[in-house]
């Protein structure tokens, strides 16, 4: 799935907009932005610090060719997928999907901010769910909590976080949503072989589509 960052930068020299049109999902919409600012103003993350650039600024930066700044930005990862911008955009740009498309592309290039919480959780969740077709809540929590800010295994930090979340965990156990025994192997969907070959096929199709676009 990964793409070589330097190779792409060279191939699309000075044309970052074209690069995203070819490589990022929904990237072909970016040029339609008329810079009205309604997406940024509609974002529920409004006066919160921590996200570098609102969507229309990202789109303008794309046009201005500020490749590295865009791809390493945390902005696309801060999207909460509320779709406010999507429904209000006067040019009907699928802004939520464009943001996700750029985020995914940055991820494939390997330049997205490493431990950005959304990206980190997304990776852990996917690896967990793709293994058996079912989410193992216990292992998900372990993978998420027992890591420090640098991404290293952290026993004491994990225990501390687990204790903080104790009441939530007990609630989940009582409601039958969390089985502590899954620490030793979780439930699975029926056709394990079928699931893996389906995921493999999906990956192949995705690769072919992207290769066609890039050609």
């Amino acid at each position, binding site marked *: 799935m990964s793409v070589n960052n330097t190779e792409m930068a060279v191939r699309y020299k000075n044309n970052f907009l074209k690069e995203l049109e070819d490589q990022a999902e929904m990237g072909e919409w970016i040029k339609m932005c008329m810079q*009205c*600012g*309604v997406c940024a*103003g*509609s974002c529920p993350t*409004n006066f919160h610090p921590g996200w570098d650039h609102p969507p*229309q600024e990202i789109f303008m930066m794309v046009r201005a060719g500020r490749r590295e700044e865009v791809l390493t930005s945390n902005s696309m990862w801060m999207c909460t997928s509320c779709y406010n911008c999507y*429904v*209000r955009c006067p040019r*009907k740009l699928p802004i939520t999907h464009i943001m996700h498309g750029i985020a995914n592309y940055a991820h494939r290039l390997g330049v997205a901010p490493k431990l950005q919480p959304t990206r980190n959780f997304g990776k852990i969740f996917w690896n967990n769910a793709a293994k058996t077709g079912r989410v193992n809540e216990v292992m998900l929590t372990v993978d998420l909590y027992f890591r420090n800010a640098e991404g290293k295994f952290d026993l004491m930090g994990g225990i501390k976080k687990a204790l903080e979340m104790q009441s939530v965990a007990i609630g989940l156990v009582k409601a039958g949503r969390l089985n502590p025994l899954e620490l030793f192997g979780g439930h699975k969907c029926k056709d394990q072989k079928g699931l893996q070959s389906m995921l493999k096929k999906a990956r192949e199709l995705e690769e072919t589509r992207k290769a066609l676009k890039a050609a």
Partner: protein
Amino acid sequence: MTSIVATNQTILVVGGGIAGMTAALEAAETGKQVVLVEKNPWLGGRTAQLYRYFPKMCHPTCGLEINLRRLKANPRIQVLTMAEVTGISGEAGNYSVNVTLSPRYVNNKCTACGECSKAVNSEIADAFNYNLGKVKAAYLPHDMAYPQRYVLDPSIIGTADAEAAKAACKVGAIDLDQQTETVSLNAGAIVWATGFQPYAAEKITPYRYGEFKNVITNVEFERLADPHGPTKGKILRPSDGKEAKNVAFIQCAGSRDENHLRHCSRFCCMASLKQTHYVQEAFGDEGKSTIYYIDIRAIDRFEDFYQKVKANPNVAFVKSKVARISEDKNGDPRLWGVNTEGYKRYSEPHDLVVLAVGMEPAVKGMAIPAALSEGIVADSSGFLAMNGNTGVFGAGCATNALDVNRAVQSATAAALRAIQVVNQVARAEN
């Protein structure tokens, strides 16, 4: 029965706004017979409802008066008010048209003395002032109304109010027995000048028009500034009657928006720039205007007007499409968004918000008679466009988003095309 003289050399003009009046006058002044059909009880359309024109800041009453004088002086124009075209059949050079006339309950003996209005108690919404106030149910639509005749609202017919109005009339002008009637007439060519309606601002849900009283539209603001309007020309905000000294204008309210009107309505930038003059004139240096815009489209020679407003220190420009409006406890509408020059987030309270709503063609959603729809198609915004050989011609804002000046040009062009059709008819008969 209303009698109308019309032949297949007559030009029918549908709509008596500035475009329809112009087309009718231009055609009649070349010697053609014209029937002018207007839905309202008065002529002048939305132009008559403006306070001032841009760019010269003169009053529409002036321009309209010239047209009305031309109209009164011309025996070749027959004006039908409170009339709607309900059917058209035939082809270029030979149309048969049905016109439905609603009763005014006041005949042409009316001297506009106003006694009937004094006698009537019930009130109705003041349509001329965009329902911002109330008028008596026996009313003169506005001071400049042509024909200068009162109207009885159908809601009082059969009540004591109607009898009181009749009794008060000294000249016997009130006729309570008038009925709706349909007349049919011939026409060789038709000019379709049904104009526009301001976009329904309540559809732009984040702006909360209709819910927050201090969010109004640009056409309503015209009435607020007009001395003949509901506030006698004082710019008072609707919620508490406070002087609105800090006014925000939101451009492209509905226009250039695929969710609403996909076209640029063209006039709204100039209208808002013009309306900053009203604020300045009413309150001097205390009157502050802020224009929130995507880009200012002051086309060709209007650039000078824009530059002058821009130089006024009491007018601020914020490059941003406002995302949403909330309301403070004191009734101030608060605007939220991001200024795209520097990407700064803002949250600004104002006394009053004016939505610069765009033009929606009145023909959109209107049942256009079948014979017409063959020759006429609508573009993706619903404006009329010509399609092949027809004797029907669009004029004014039925064809495009136009300001008064361009609507007049468009009407003159349509009149010329209509004249060509009836000239061919005349030659064929010779």
